[in-house]
């Protein structure tokens, strides 16, 4: 292994002190002179016609500066399916539908004004079950939405997710064992500690500045420009400035109604307008993880070789469409490529209902699909009479493999991960006790080198160095708490031979920062890291050239270590970095040391059949868990938690472990306690008391195991690790529960009630 100065070091996050001391500036802290406060009136019904809106009383309230509705605003449509206006006219389709909005001089007045808006509704029949919503004669959520061959009104979206490889029907006939099951997963929330919010501001020329906490500054910029066009403001500029982000987890991968409402209010009032969500709004008016009903069949031969995987899914799309509807594109990844399975069929339908609508959330469909797949692997292994550990080993992916979706597997540490988990759990000893204690495991695949979701998967970086040797890295990447800034600083520092504290990373402003496609697909370390490394290499070349003149040495003979440029031939020939820079700046005909680099990994877009090498490398991992089940109460306690991940290389083991701890913790919540409870479309638990996110007392001791495979494409060999930590958690726990007490729970979360009911039924 190479001798690194900054790579592989446990360096705390650069913003850690600011955050723990409360000095960091979040969007909630931000005040712009003259700022007004916006509030939103939501629908009191899941499905209703709007007959009349009377805002006159609200407008007369002292301190109110504007009241907007769907009737006095331009026709903006947002979301990739363009079915969602910021303010709804004529009809509401869910409890989170925005009906009116107010801007006032303080938040209390804005809230009081909401209560003065009179809306008359005619209640329509509503539908909350996606399987019911597909049936003929079901109430239509969007009457104008046409689909199918005959172009008839339908609740089924025109998104025919379909992946076929090999011949599933034939393979099924030739299988010795076939397992067939129905799994169900429900809504869970991102639970960002920083709630959603923004400040919209126009200058005199109607250029927009958005203070935002987006994960996708460059794409959000485009969304805002589209909105400005719809408002009749063509050719204007949109600038996005990010405050410190209090958690993203995918929730900030789209733009939302509240942002457009802030823009509309700011335009109307000619004042900056701030909208900040309350915790209750954060729970019911932002978009959770995509729920799904999963019909799955898998088969194997007598000796435990997987023969096929056949999956049919119904996704509850909710009333409008955000990225949740595209999660099947990522579900295809584990469906086609988790373990070697030659024949694959996957079809999914997204169906409008009057429920809330979903968004991206860490793992982007992968945890849902993996729960079904790897729970059923245990079921199938039992049918075949094979230990699930051996079953997984026999079907484990290997380097060099091309999967049915045409993924080209490059480095792959899956076998090592399974192996280390089995060792740590003392698998052969502890499996099959059935005495209330049990062990289980599950594995995962995720993109490890970004993913070509859009036409580009690129990220730009600019690096300049000042007179004193401080390295300014201006990146397109977004640090939303995961520590991207720190990892980028380490990569640049390593390449330039300086210390991490010499590097300042700026990522906050689209007027300054280069383009990037966004913080998604666990891509930031890989893509932004490679981009930063490329820029650093170019800067280094320039530095050595400048230094060569002042040191009288060939550039090839020079290198940089610990802020000093020195000659490899004659260590006495050296100069501090700052001095070289000053020499460059102050010389006649001087030179500025600065470079840019745009990195776009050789990833492929999926073709029409949804096949293609989506990512240049893939991340694998296996989680193992030991549980104790209280047979009388149905409660599950986690005794041991092992999370082994093939990470390519750990650039910063401390931050990497943080990702694994956080991911596994989120995954344990997904498996055991968390759910948004919707009753007839209404979120019944919009608070942390009744939404059971784990507390510090509930998180077990999670043991992360780092498996390094040194990926040839990764920056210093690294792969992405942002999402993998929660992907295999739920099936690992479900498998352990089965081992402990012999009951198989197929819908999440696995509550004590479900376990106890299953135990009673088994008796």
């Amino acid at each position, binding site marked *: 292994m190479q001798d690194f100065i900054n790579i592989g070091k446990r360096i705390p996050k650069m913003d850690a002190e600011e955050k723990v001391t409360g000095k960091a500036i979040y969007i909630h802290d931000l005040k712009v002179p003259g700022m007004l406060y916006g509030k939103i009136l939501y629908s009191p019904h899941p499905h209703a016609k709007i007959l009349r809106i009377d805002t006159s009383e609200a407008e007369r309230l002292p301190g109110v500066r504007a009241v907007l509705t769907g009737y006095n605003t331009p026709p903006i449509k947002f979301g990739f399916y363009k079915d969602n206006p910021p303010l709804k006219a004529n009809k509401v389709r869910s409890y989170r539908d925005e009906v009116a909005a107010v801007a006032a001089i303080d938040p*209390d007045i804005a809230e009081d004004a909401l209560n003065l808006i009179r809306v008359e509704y005619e209640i329509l029949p509503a539908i909350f079950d996606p399987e019911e919503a597909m049936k003929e004669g079901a109430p239509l959520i969007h009457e104008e939405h046409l689909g199918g061959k005959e172009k008839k009104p339908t609740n089924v979206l025109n998104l025919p997710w379909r992946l076929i490889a090999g011949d599933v029907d034939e393979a099924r006939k030739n299988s010795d064992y076939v397992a067939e099951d129905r799994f169900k997963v429900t809504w869970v929330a991102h639970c960002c500690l920083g709630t959603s919010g923004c400040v919209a501001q126009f200058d005199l020329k109607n250029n927009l500045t958005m203070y935002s906490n987006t994960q996708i500054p460059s794409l959000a910029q485009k969304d805002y420009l589209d909105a400005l066009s719809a408002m009749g403001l063509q050719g204007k500029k949109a600038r996005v400035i990010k405050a410190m982000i209090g958690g993203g987890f995918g929730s900030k991968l789209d733009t939302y109604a509240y942002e457009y409402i802030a823009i509309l209010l700011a335009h109307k009032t000619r004042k900056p307008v701030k909208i900040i969500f309350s915790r209750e709004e954060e729970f019911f008016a932002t978009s959770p993880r995509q729920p799904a009903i999963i019909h799955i069949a898998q088969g194997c031969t007598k000796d435990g070789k997987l023969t096929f995987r056949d999956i049919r899914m119904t996704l509850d799309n909710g009333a409008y469409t955000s990225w949740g509807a595209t999660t099947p594109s990522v579900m295809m990844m584990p469906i086609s490529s988790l373990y070697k399975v030659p024949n694959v069929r996957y079809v999914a339908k997204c169906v409008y209902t009057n429920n809330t609508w979903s968004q991206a959330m860490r793992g982007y469909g992968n945890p849902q699909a993996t729960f079904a797949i790897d729970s059923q692997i245990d079921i199938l292994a039992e049918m075949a009479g094979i230990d699930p550990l051996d079953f997984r080993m026999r079907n484990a992916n290997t380097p060099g493999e091309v999967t049915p979706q045409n993924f080209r597997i490059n480095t792959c540490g899956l076998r090592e991960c399974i192996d280390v988990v089995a060792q740590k759990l003392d698998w052969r000893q502890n499996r099959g006790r059935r005495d209330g204690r049990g062990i289980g495991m599950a594995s995962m695949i995720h993109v490890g080198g970004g993913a070509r979701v859009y036409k580009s998967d690129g990220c730009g970086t600019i690096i300049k160095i000042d007179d004193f040797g401080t390295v300014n890295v201006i990146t397109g990447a977004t640090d939303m708490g995961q520590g991207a800034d720190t990892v980028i600083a380490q990569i640049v520092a390593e390449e330039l031979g300086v210390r991490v504290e010499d590097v300042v990373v700026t990522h906050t402003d689209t007027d300054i920062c280069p383009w990037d496609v966004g913080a998604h697909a666990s891509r930031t370390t890989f893509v932004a890291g490679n981009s930063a490394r490329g820029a650093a290499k170019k800067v280094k070349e320039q530095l050595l050239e400048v230094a060569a003149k002042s040191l009288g040495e060939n550039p090839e003979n020079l290198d940089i270590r610990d802020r000093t440029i020195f000659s490899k031939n004659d260590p006495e020939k050296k100069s501090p970095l700052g001095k070289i820079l000053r020499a460059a700046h102050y010389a006649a005909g001087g030179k500025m040391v600065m470079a840019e680099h745009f990195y776009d990994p050789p990833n492929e877009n999926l073709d029409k059949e949804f096949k293609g090498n989506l990512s240049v490398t893939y991340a694998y991992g296996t989680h193992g868990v030991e549980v104790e089940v209280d047979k*009388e*109460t149905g409660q599950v306690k986690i005794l041991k938690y092992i999370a082994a991940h093939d990470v390519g290389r750990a650039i910063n083991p401390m931050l990497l472990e943080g990702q694994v701890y956080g991911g596994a913790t989120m995954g344990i919540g997904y498996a055991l*306690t968390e759910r948004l*409870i919707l009753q007839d479309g209404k979120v*019944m*638990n919009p608070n*942390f*008391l*009744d939404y*059971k996110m*784990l*507390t*510090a*007392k*509930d998180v077990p001791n999670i043991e992360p195991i780092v498996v390094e495979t040194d990926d040839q494409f990764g920056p210093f060999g690294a792969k992405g690790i942002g999402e993998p930590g929660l992907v295999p958690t739920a099936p690992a726990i479900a498998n352990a529960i089965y081992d402990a007490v012999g009951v198989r729970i197929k819908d999440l979360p696995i*509550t*004590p*009630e479900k376990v*106890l009911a299953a135990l009673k039924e088994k008796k």
Partner: protein
Amino acid sequence: MKKFDYLKPHTLDEALSLLNQYGNRAQLIAGGTDVIVMIKQKKLFPDVLISLQGIPGLGQIDYNGMLRIGPMVTHRAIEKSELIRKEFSALTDSADVLGSVQIRNVATIGGNIVTAAPSADTAAPLLALGAQVKLKSMQTERTIPIEQFFTGPGETVLEKGQILTEILIPKPLPNTGSAYWKLQRRGALDLPILGVAVLLSLDKATVTCSDLLCTASPISTVLHSLEGDEVFCKEVRIALGVAAPTPMRATKAENLLRGKKISDELLKEVAETAAKEAQPRDSLRGEAWYRRDMIEVLVKRMAMRCIERILRPEETIFPVRLW
């Protein structure tokens, strides 16, 4: 958030007089962990908050033949009281699992009682411990058993102008143990799906056991291997939270056990009876069938824990956590 005036009287008489003066416009505030939340949620609209924070004496714990707990005593103080842990263990069990440490540092036992949530953590233990509460107004003062205090969810006998000034708990009989279990979905910051408190007094605190390993075995095993020794129940109180509109006593179950020889089978029957007399309902936080099933499981477990605390008292002397 609604604006209000904040008054901080320095004597109980002053507080009572202010309460009288402002009538419906006033709201008493102790720790504020319920009141402030309810104001923010627009469930309370007081013009005036009268704080009990500045009144000396309301935050005291005294033990003089009877345990007297002031309404302003925080859950943290209860949790840390060695006296309460030793003699009134069920109360420690409940204070120790309410909210989080930060909440327990400010939330008071008086507040927990007067808010009268069916899920109030300290209510069931106080019922099991046979507590009484003292209610004082400008003119009157009366002491009533805590069973009579609760009248419905969020409703109590407390009248306008009255303040709950003291919680009184009688000294337990010799050979008594008590225990509370909060069935919850996570380890902190949760409300109980169900709360079960049991107080048990036995006729003796030492038994002869046929098996040397008895000292380490579960209590149900010990009960089976008593060597010609019989243990009788002198007194028992079983209290349930979230099992009915108010915290309740399972009196039929108690009657089944009082005066009888303790056995595994009898405890099972007692627990079944308690489950039958409860009236749990379906709610967002738990289904009725599960609550009923859990009463059966937990009443027995808590009875066993009481016996364990009597026979192996050292378990209640040493704190659960040493740091």
